[in-house]
Structures are given as C-alpha cells and as structure tokens.
C-alpha cells in the first residue's frame, strides 16, 4: 500500500520540525547494518507515536514503611513505551514535582545528542513545572529502557521499559520484565554511608544471609582465620559483590510478577531489562533452558543456556517454553550477592519453583582475593588473561559450581591447571552465558577509517569509595575528542576489585570476542576484575557522549569520561556552555559528611569528617566532664595521595586544657617532656595505612613536640561487635568495644588512659 500523500507530508513536517536542524539526513545511524533490520519500507505506514509522561512525587510502602519515591503517570516503574521501528517517537515530559528538577535518558537509542537526556551535558534539566518534548525517529528495534539521569532518582522509581518492535515481525507471545531494587534507606543516605565506609548494609545482609560481614568470629567458625588475617594484612576490607543492602528486589515493580496468559507448549519471548541502580541479577528458569536471542536490544544468533548474569543496565531477550499445562514456571532473578530474589511466574496453575541460588562462600572468595591482590594494591591475574566473562573468579564462591562449603577449602591444594579453575562451563554441567558466546547474525565490521586507540584502566578503592578511570574522575580530565570518519577502539582493563557495567551513550560498540566479523553489538559491557576487553565503534554521531560505569553510586563518584564529536553548531538547549560544564562536573566533586560521638560516662569522644574524593577535613575530640580530665580538640586538613590513597599528609590545630595535675611533666617516647595541661599548637604530619589496616600517624607541632600514633577502628570481632584501638608515643592509649544496634546506634564501653573506664552510647551519622 503506497504511502498516501497526506501522511507523507505529515511525516516530512515532523521530520523537519522540533529538531532545530540538528537531525542528520540519513536514517541509517552508526553505519551498522545490524540496526534497521526490519526490511524495506514497502508496505509500512510510518507514524508519530506519542506518549505523555507526568512525573510526580509519591509515597510508597513496599515494606510497610512509607517512603518517598517518584512515579510517572502514577506508576512505578515508569510506563512501558512501545514503538515500531521507523516510527517517530514523540514523548512529552512534564515535571509536576514541587521543587526538584529531573531528566530522562533513552538508554540505547540512537538519536540527536541534545535529546540524549544527560543534564548539563547534552540536555537541559527539566525544572519543576516545566515540560520538554522529545521527538526523534526510531532507527532500530529491540528491548531498551529509559531512566532519570539526575542525581539518584533512578533508584527510587524513575526507570521504565522502552520496546521498539520490528516492522512486520512475526507475532509471538511476549512479556516485558524490568528488574529493579528497593531500599527503605534514602538513596542520598545510601550514598553518604558508602563514602563513610559504613558497613551497616553488610550487617543487614547478614541477618538475611549469614556470612556477609566476614568478621573474625565468622572466620574462626569456618576455619578461615588465616584467610582473614591475610586479607587484612593486604589492607582489604571484607569484600562483597555488591555494596548496598536492598529490602526487596522487584520485577515490574512487584516482588512476584505474573504472566498468566502464556499457554503450555508455547514459545514465548521474555524481554528482560536490568533497571536496577547497582545490582547484578542471575537469571534462571524452572521450565528448562533459555535461548538468548538478543543483547542490549540487538539480535544475536540464538544460544541456549541454563543461566546468565545481567549487569546493571543490560537487556537480554530470551525465548523459553512453557513445558506443561496447568503449571506456572518460575523465572527467577537473584541478586549477585544472593540475598534477595524476584520471581516472574510464566503460565498459570500449580507453581513450579526454580532451585534457589545458595549463599556465597565468602571466605573462599576472600582466599581468592588474597591470591590476586599484591601488597601495593594492584591485582595480579597470574597469567590468566581474563576477558569476556569467560572466567569468573567468583566461581569459588558459588556452591552450585564448586560444591558445598567444607569441600573446597583446602589450603594449597597444589597446582591448578590454569584457566579451568575459574571457568564455570568447564567445572560443571550448568551452561552459563558469557560474551564469547554472543555472535551477530550479520557482519558488524566498521567502515574503513583511521583508528583512535585508547587504553582505559578502571581503578577503585573500596575504603574511600573512589571509583575512576586511570585514577582520574570525569571532572579531573578533559573531554576526549573524536571525529566523524574515525573508528574509536577502547582497550579496557579492570584493575579494581569489583565488576563494572560500562555504558556508552549514543552508539553501539562491537565487543571484540573472537567471532571475527560477527562481533556482537552492545551498549553496556560488564567487565570483571582483572579482565581486559576491547570495544570499538565508528564515531558517526556528533555531540557530547557520556561513557560511564552504570552502577549509580560509582557514576556519581565520577567513574567515566566524555567523548566529544564536534557538532557544527552549538547545542541549542545549553546556550551557556561553560556554565553547563561546571554544573555537569560538580557531582563527583561533592563533599560528604560523617560524624560519630561516644556519649560515655567518662566523657564525650568523637570525630567528624568532611571529605571529598581527595581532601579530608577532620576533627577529633575528647571532652571530659571534669577539669581534671580536661578537654582536647584537634582538627586537621589534608589530601590523600597515591592510587590506593594510603598516604595522607596534613596540617592541623591542636587544643588541650586540663587542670589539677600540677607541674608533673610526662615524658613521651621521644624523650620530650610536657605537662599536657594546656596546649594550643599547629601541627604538620602525615598518616599512612599499614598492613592490618592500622593507621600510622606522625606529626610535629609548633612546640617542637613529636608524636607517633598507631590506630585502628572498626575491627570486626563478630558481625555486630567492633573494636577500636589507639596507642601513641605520648603513652596515651584507648580501647573501645562497640556493639552495633542499628545504622546509627551502638552500645559502647571504652578505656582511655587519660579518662579511665566508661560506658556509653555511640551515635553515628
């Protein structure tokens, strides 16, 4: 049926309007034949598909406690937007919130850069009360999603599915599942506590699945004391695969989702989206194997697996069957830390459960980390050259692959035979998907052109929560210039202890995985510790494109870079380019505040820190109740140096006052004498983190007094019992035991060489 002249003129008007001349002439973007696979225009009637989205504040109650969240058109997750390839999408977004600004990023879509939705980089934020219209052609098909790119809004409801159907697609029953997480803790507080290295989330997880805290008592119980000591000797804190404790995992906004209309014997397509902020999900199915047919929206040659892991922001299309009638089969999504899961029941009838994933064997994981971590903080892959998820070191923690707990830990079981030690598929009959198994049905080779090769090393520091590329955050580096006609090749190496889902805006990249010309196209790459992966893309899209880790809290800490492919005209929606740049880069420059005070019978003992990624302003105080005990306050300001940030040179001020001790001078270890009755000095010195996580503090003050101090806080004796120790060359020492009650409160008792014994309550902000 030929396109009628009316519709053609509407289409033309639509194409010319609303895009202020920024829209490129050709519809084939990125030069990838894999996109636009629906076939010739032929008998297809293009149209404008319009959605109106209204963003509001709302109160939700997932756990029975009312909490603030964001809803769009009254729903969480945001409504599923459905299009057909070739349509023009017209999304009218109104921010109906009272005060907050917001934004929406269309993840995975190829579109003009000023509609990409990254506030202050490509798009203006949608201020409270404002409406913005996003109008662009859909040049691709597949499973995508959309989410806020402002602050931490993505965590609290602003995520939703975006599906683009192929033209003339053969009808097949399908179900869309967007996975997400819920925490009752405000995301801002989650973020702050991550920066304060507060392990309350590990204690919460421990209640659900014992073992996450990996305290000394846990280690002794499992015969892994040597492992724990080695781990702290190498200056590592207890490792977890995920930082945050979630109260619930959700599928389509519910802990249990249903697709009862699917019938037995049917083959159905499930479009899975990881819309979580920080969780990876294992996907397993009670009705047998799953056939993976698309990744990040782009078709791959079908590959049958028993399970696969979804990184944050990845999407996968799978085809499964409903084997028997009157039976619903569980599609199970389990978080990588195995603390929580969400289920989708496919079919209707008696419910066939999938086997749950057993808890992680944490000390096996710790032992593996000990082997991989060098004393200087670098990771050593022991010649294994890991890539493409083929070797999963965490496999030592998976009981379903390496057997139950006691069986596998034998200290030094002799030589391993290289790669197979961590290769899931070699170790068991369970087939786990990895990137080397993905193959594009069509060739994806880039058009000929000069290659700009970049090497990025992902770096991270759990103790200070500094996540970066080459130890530089996005605000500490310049934008990277790329030009049309160039091909950009990025060699990514992950030298951090966590896996990261790296996402590139505006383009698909080839994942160079041994499939030659048929390398798959993706827009999110999960890269595991010590892996090196190569991705490449043609720089066809003009504009500013963000490349970042999609773990929300890592992105906020600056783990990313910006590629600039210069556009002929300035960005029409960001007229003040310098102001925009300043606002875009301010997130990872944020300062975080943390304070703690022990309200005890022998005085108030506490500290407060105002820190950002490199600098720290810290105050410590010991305030006695009597003039005999006296008061002492100390403040210092300094900068963290080095990749591991173990060095902390600083300068500060020291005040002290005390009465009733007469003229007895005390002698310190350096032979210097001081009555310690009154002090008001400046000091300069440094701190250094030693093995066993002891902090060595050395300083000299304006009275010429030297002081050396060793201190360790938060030694995890048991999951809830913590020990703080301090001793210094002034012959002062302090020991404190704290029992953690909840995120802010702990019961404590301590002995201070100047103030004696006391019991009290420690409050932590």
């Amino acid at each position, binding site marked *: 049926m030929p396109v009628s002249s009316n519709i053609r003129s509407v289409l033309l008007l639509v194409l010319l309007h609303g895009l202020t001349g920024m829209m490129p002439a050709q519809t084939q973007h990125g030069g990838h034949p894999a996109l636009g696979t629906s076939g010739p225009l032929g008998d297809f009637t293009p149209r404008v598909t319009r959605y109106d989205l209204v963003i509001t504040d709302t109160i939700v109650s997932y756990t029975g406690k009312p909490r603030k969240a964001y809803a769009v058109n009254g729903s969480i997750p945001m409504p599923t937007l459905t299009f057909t390839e070739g349509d023009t999408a017209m999304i009218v977004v109104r921010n109906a919130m009272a005060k907050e600004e917001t934004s929406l990023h269309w993840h995975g879509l190829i579109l003009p850069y000023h509609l990409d939705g990254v506030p202050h980089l490509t798009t203006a934020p949608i201020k409270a009360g404002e409406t913005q219209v996003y109008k662009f052609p859909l040049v691709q098909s597949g499973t995508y999603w959309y989410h806020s790119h402002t602050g931490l809004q993505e965590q609290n409801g602003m995520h939703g599915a975006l599906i683009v159907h192929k033209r003339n697609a053969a009808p097949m029953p399908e179900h869309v599942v967007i996975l997400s997480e819920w925490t009752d803790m405000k995301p801002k507080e989650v973020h702050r506590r991550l920066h304060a290295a507060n392990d309350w989330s590990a204690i919460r997880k421990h209640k659900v699945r014992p073992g996450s805290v990996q305290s000394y008592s846990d280690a002794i119980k499992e015969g892994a004391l040597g492992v724990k000591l080695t781990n702290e000797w190498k200056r590592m804190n207890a490792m977890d695969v995920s930082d945050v404790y979630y109260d619930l995992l959700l599928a389509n906004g519910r802990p249990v989702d249903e697709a009862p209309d699917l019938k*037995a*014997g049917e083959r159905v397509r499930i479009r899975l989206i990881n819309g979580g902020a920080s969780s990876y999900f294992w996907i397993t199915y*009670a*009705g*047998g*194997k799953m056939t993976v047919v698309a990744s990040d929206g782009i078709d791959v040659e079908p590959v049958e697996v028993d399970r696969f892991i979804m990184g944050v922001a990845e999407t996968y299309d799978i085809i499964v*069957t409903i*084997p*028997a*009638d*009157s*039976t619903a089969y569980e599609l199970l999504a389990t978080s990588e830390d195995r603390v929580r899961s969400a289920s989708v029941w496919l079919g209707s009838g*008696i*419910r*066939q*459960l*999938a*086997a*749950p994933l057993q808890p992680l064997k944490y000390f096996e994981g710790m032992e593996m980390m000990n082997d991989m971590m060098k004393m200087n903080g670098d990771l050593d892959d022991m010649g294994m050259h890991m890539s493409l998820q083929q070797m999963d070191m965490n496999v030592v923690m998976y009981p379903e*692959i*390496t*057997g*139950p707990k*006691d*069986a*596998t830990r*034998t200290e030094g*079981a*002799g*030589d*391993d*035979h290289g790669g*197979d*030690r961590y290769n899931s598929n*070699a*170790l*068991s009959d369970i087939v786990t998907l990895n990137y080397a198994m993905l193959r594009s049905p069509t060739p994806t080779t880039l058009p000929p052109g000069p290659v700009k090769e970049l090497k990025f090393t992902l770096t991270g520091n759990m103790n200070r929560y500094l996540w970066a590329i080459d130890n530089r955050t996005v605000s500490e580096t310049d934008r990277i210039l790329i030009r049309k006609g160039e091909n950009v090749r990025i060699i990514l190496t992950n030298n951090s202890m966590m896996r990261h889902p790296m996402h590139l805006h505006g383009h698909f990249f080839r994942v160079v995985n041994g499939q030659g010309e048929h390398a798959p196209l993706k827009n999110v790459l999960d890269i595991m510790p010590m892996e090196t992966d190569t991705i490449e893309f043609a720089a066809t899209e003009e504009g500013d494109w963000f490349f970042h880790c999609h773990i929300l809290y890592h992105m906020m800490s600056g783990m990313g870079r910006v590629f600039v492919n210069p556009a002929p005209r300035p960005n029409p929606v960001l007229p003040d380019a310098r102001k925009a740049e300043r606002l875009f880069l301010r997130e990872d420059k944020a300062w975080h505040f943390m304070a703690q005070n022990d309200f005890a019978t022998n005085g108030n003992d506490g500290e407060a820190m105002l820190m950002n990624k490199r600098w720290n302003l810290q105050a410590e105080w010991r305030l006695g109740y009597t003039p005999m005990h006296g008061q002492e306050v100390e403040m210092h300001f300094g900068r963290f140096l080095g990749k591991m940030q173990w060095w902390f040179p600083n300068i500060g001020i020291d005040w002290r006052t005390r009465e009733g001790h007469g003229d007895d001078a005390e002698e310190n270890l350096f032979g210097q004498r001081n009555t310690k009755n009154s002090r008001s000095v400046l000091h300069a010195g440094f701190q250094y983190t030693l093995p066993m996580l002891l902090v060595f503090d050395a300083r000299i003050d304006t009275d010429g007094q030297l002081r050396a101090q060793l201190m360790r806080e938060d030694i995890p004796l048991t999951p809830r019992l913590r020990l703080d120790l301090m001793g210094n060359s002034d012959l002062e020492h302090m020991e404190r035991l704290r029992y953690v009650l909840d995120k802010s409160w702990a019961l404590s008792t301590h002995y201070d060489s100047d103030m004696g014994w006391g019991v009290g309550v420690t409050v932590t902000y």
Partner: protein
Amino acid sequence: MKTIGLLIATLLLLPGCNAQLKNARTVTVRVDGDWPMCEKTIEKAAYVKGEAEVDWDVDAKTARITIDSMRTDIDAVLQRIAHAGYDNERFLAPDAAYTALPGCCQYERTFKRAPQNAQATVPVQDDAHHHHIAEEGTGQEVADPLAPVLTGYFALKDALVASDATKAKDAAIQLNEAVRGVDMGALDHEVHMVWMEVMGSLTSTTTTIANAKGLEAQRKVFRELTAPMTRLVKASPTSTPVYLDHCPMYEGGADWLSRDKAIKNPFYGSQMMTCGSVKETIIR
C-alpha cells in the same frame, strides 16, 4: 491453686495448642511425601516462630497449617515446604531439591504434570537415587545383572567429582546395596568367576566409604574400588565405552573409571578438575 496450675500445665502440653499464634487461621492442604521421617523435615521447613506451624500426616498426605494471618500467608508456608523438596497443592519442589531428598523419601510426584511435547526436557520423576534402581537397569544391556553396580559406581564417582560428601555417602550405600543385590546365577560363566573374586572387596570397600568421615577419607578409599571395578568391566564390557583415567598427582598416582571422555577428577574435584588423562578405553 494447685489445680489451676495443673490445668494450665495440661493445656499448654496439649498438642496443636495454638495459644501462641495470634490472628490464627488454619487450613488443611495436600502435601506430598512418602516416609514418616519426612514429617520432621516438612514441619521444620514450614515452621517460623510466631508466624506459622504445620502438622503433617503421612497417611493422609495432608498438612494442617496454622498461621498468624496478619504476618504471613499460606503461600509463603507452602513455598518453604516446596523448597525443602515436597510438592504440594500450590508449589512444586525444584527438581534439585527433590533429588536431594534421601532415596526413601522420594515420593511419586503426582502433582507434577508431564510436559506437552514428546521431547521431555523436564523429567516427571528423577531416577538418579530412586531406590528401585536395581530393577530399572540402564536400558542398553538387556537385563544385565551387573548394570546397577556400574551405575552405582558412576554415581559415587560423580558425587566425588562434585565434592559432595553427603551425596557420596548416599551413593556408597546405594552401590553397596547394588553389589549385595546381584543375582550371581544370572551371570555368564566367565563373569561369574570374576564376580566371585571381586564381590568381597567391593562390599567391604563400599561399606568403608559409607562410614568414612569426610570427603578426603571417602576419596582415599574410593581409589581402592578402581581395580576390582576395572576387572569387572573388562570381563563384561559394555557397548558404550568406559574410560580408565589416570591422575598422576593423587597419592602418587590413582585411577578411576568414567563414562565421559572429558576428564573430571573425583580425587580433587574443582581444585583440579581436568587433571588426568585417559589410560585405556574399554569397549566390546
């Protein structure tokens, strides 16, 4: 005073006294299970202090579930029971949980419906540890009396490959039963002669493995099974090949038999899964 005290004590001792659960709601639901000893497992899986308790009747195959309806629901209880391995009206146990049940507890899965296509990807009943295994046979050797011994050996070997001491113990017990259940009269003459020679050591070795404390002890004794089993397989070779594998590292060198060509080491498990090589292929 004394009578009141006695009365209270008696009331508290009455079975099924739900004085503890508030907002109590009781339902009777069908829960599958075969053996009286399953009762403890079912009731323990279902029990949550202050929320749910269950009384399961093995003859009627029903569970009387009492819950605090404000804190939980019947589905949550039935889901826990199913996760422990017991099918019920609302939930089917995961296959792995069912097969992990001790052989005697593996009831017939009447709640489970067969898949629609001929190519059954989900078995209705898993035979791996079913205690009628001796009668099933392997299907290749027609009524071969030694088949259960072979199958039992491979099951034990697989359990050690998976580093699963509990499964290995069960497999050793099964193999022991299979050895003692062989009908010598049905064997060919040559096989009979070999059987007479190896039967004793097979019986005693499998008993030792079954009583061994821990995975390493099991592995050490498992090694001693290889020689008599190899003699047996060579005397009555099967149409599907059996591989004699050798691992040079374990205790100065150790052999085992396998149906798979791929090396999966039962002495080291995942620590050194692929250590070893095929020494010999035994085939008719």
